[in-house]
């Protein structure tokens, strides 16, 4: 017979593990997204330069 405390402990450990894994994944994604943000800044700057050349 599984006690209620055992079940609660099991779920606590499960959720903690999932949260930790999600946080690690998000950190990796954030680092990769950071490169895309920098590329985006460059793209916007290129468009601004073209606009300036075109007269506005």
């Amino acid at each position: 017979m599984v006690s209620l405390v055992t079940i609660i402990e099991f779920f606590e450990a499960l959720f903690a593990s999932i949260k930790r894994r999600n946080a690690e994944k998000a950190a990796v994604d954030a680092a990769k997204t950071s490169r895309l943000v920098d590329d985006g800044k460059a793209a916007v700057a290129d468009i601004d330069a073209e606009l300036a050349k075109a007269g506005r």
Partner: protein
Amino acid sequence: MRKALVLIFITAIAVSSSCSRSYYHDAEVLSAYQRQARAMCLAANAKSKLSTCRRAKACAGAAQAGLEAVQLYQLASAAMTATIDDRVAADAAYAGAVAACGVAGVRLGVSSGVAAVDAGTSHNAAKPLAPITDGGAHG
């Protein structure tokens, strides 16, 4: 036996509801829009340069705001401090950027490296708006 099945079922529900989707794919889509907008602006001929680049800027600027919102959410997730509001902000910024690019006439094809996303299909805004005026700067 029945209790074990119930436990397995609850576990499956808990695991599936706890796993968050990756927002990096959204960031890739927004980045692809920016690349497409930049290419569109650079490739425009002199006559339509101003109009095309203004549209491209509307798309790329919105996509940049979307990228930064996604990055904020990812950083908050990494620090385990993300709230539902961070997620909604990232979703809203992404949806806004996709809609803006659709209205501006920037579309992604298969060749962009991201699965084709047609910004205009959901709101019939894919057709670029005809420029009313460029302020008279260019005839």
